[in-house]
């Protein structure tokens, strides 16, 4: 699905965020990306969504070398990826339904399919009946669920999450993780960045640990 081959990344201010990173995420695999804040987790995810480009090395996405994708065609890559953000990035002037529908509107899905798939996605994350609510009237756990529903509504082949449980208490975090596992069980490859070690320990998933921009360990 994803493979990093000697990837380094330096920001314009000279900060070297990633140094010679090598790893592979296989189709249908669920992998946790850990490490203290500032270790390069977010940068690594940004390279996959092409918000940033590597200084050297290459990234393959489904066999496609991302270095060869021009800025004009980045949108095609992003349509294959669902992203969950720590601050969920919901639009507060739109209700739950409209927020979840955004990725489908972007690809031009027709109204009937949008309605069907958005409802399915919302009920999958356990928010059925709250379609007309606005994000500010939801709890933070529910807001994050809306973010997840939005990330999966277009049935992406890859799900990325950047500290998805960062703002949640342990019980809510556990519920969110269960959701990710459910999506993974139906074949969605997932890469989840987190510093919540407890959540990891309870699961037998591969872990990629970053420290100061370097991949320090890979564990099963």
């Amino acid at each position, binding site marked *: 699905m994803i493979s990093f081959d000697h990837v380094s990344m330096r920001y314009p201010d000279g900060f070297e965020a990633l140094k010679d990173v090598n790893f592979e995420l296989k189709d249908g695999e669920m992998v946790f990306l850990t490490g203290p804040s500032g270790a390069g987790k977010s940068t690594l995810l940004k390279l996959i969504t092409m*918000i940033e480009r590597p200084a050297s090395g290459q990234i393959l996405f489904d066999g496609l070398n991302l270095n060869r994708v021009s800025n004009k065609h980045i949108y095609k890559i992003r349509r294959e990826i669902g*992203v969950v953000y720590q601050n969920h*990035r919901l639009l507060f002037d739109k209700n739950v339904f409209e927020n979840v529908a*955004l990725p489908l509107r972007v*690809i*031009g*899905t027709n109204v009937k399919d949008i309605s069907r798939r958005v409802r399915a996605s919302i009920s999958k994350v356990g928010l059925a009946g709250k379609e007309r609510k606005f994000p500010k009237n939801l709890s933070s756990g529910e807001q994050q669920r809306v973010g997840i529903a939005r990330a999966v509504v*277009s049935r992406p082949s890859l799900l990325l999450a950047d500290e998805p449980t960062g703002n949640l208490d342990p019980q809510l975090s556990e519920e969110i993780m269960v959701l990710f596992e459910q999506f993974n069980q139906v074949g969605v490859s997932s890469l989840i960045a987190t510093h919540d070690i407890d959540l990891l320990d309870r699961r037998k998933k591969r872990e990629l640990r970053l420290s100061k921009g370097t991949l320090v360990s890979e564990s099963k």
Partner: protein
Amino acid sequence: MNQNRAEKKSGFLLRTRLLVSGHFDDLKKTAAELITNPLNSTLSLLLIAVSIALPSIFLTLTTNFMSGLDRIDESPKINVYLREEVSIEEGMTVTRGLLEHPQVSEATFISADEALKEFQEGSNLSGILIALDENPLPHVVEVVPSSLDPLDVSNLVMSIELYDQVQEASINLRWLERLFAISLILKRLVFVLALILFLGVILVIAHTIGVAIQFKRQEIELMLLIGATHGFVKRPFRYLGFWYGFGGGLLAAVITELSVSSLSASVEALAQSYRSSYALDSGGIVGILAIIVVGVFLGVVGASIGVSRHVKEIQN
């Protein structure tokens, strides 16, 4: 991914229909935004409207001024004096020949006798002429040129003078030249004014769109992150520009009509004092449509500038 591939295959017609309905949605939504946010949009709309209306009013007045000049009785005529020995029949032939000339719109033959009669009726000098033994006046052809451009007119005069039967062709070119120069200045003035104000309109719309984009920055960032094309993100703002231009143009047409019709009454009164009937012509439906088209054009151009500048800032 399979899903997306299936969508790609889902047929040209369907995609076109989706595209059209998407555009239509944006058109409706942006219009609704303008209407539901009257405070934000009114000031911009008024500014746009006044900027378009001003040159429109001037243009209306100058075209009326110039068409008014055309209607003045003393429109420039070339007096073609025929040689003494030319007979009336020959003179008529020359007149018919002149009528065929592409630069001549009218040619009237005036025989020496007619000219004399006219002169006697029109002046106090008839006594002098009676004292003369014979009619000293030649046959004359009065020629009205089809173009008022002094260069065309003097070319016409020269070509007429080449006729064997013609003694002399004369016209008072100086007032024509002045008139022409004045109308040229007026035209230029309107052009320059329009250029400056239209540039202003474009900048106002670009700025207004820029503010709208800043206001929706979060949404645009998110849209780009979930795979929206730049075209998709820019589209609603282009339509917003379209509506600003359309609304501004419509308002400008109303302002122009009102101003011209309010001026019209006093112009008519003035014309009547010269025993002439003359009414301002505001250009009617064609004029209104032209103003709206200009507005829409400026709106679309302004929006493109605003959109490409501000979306570039956001990127990613």
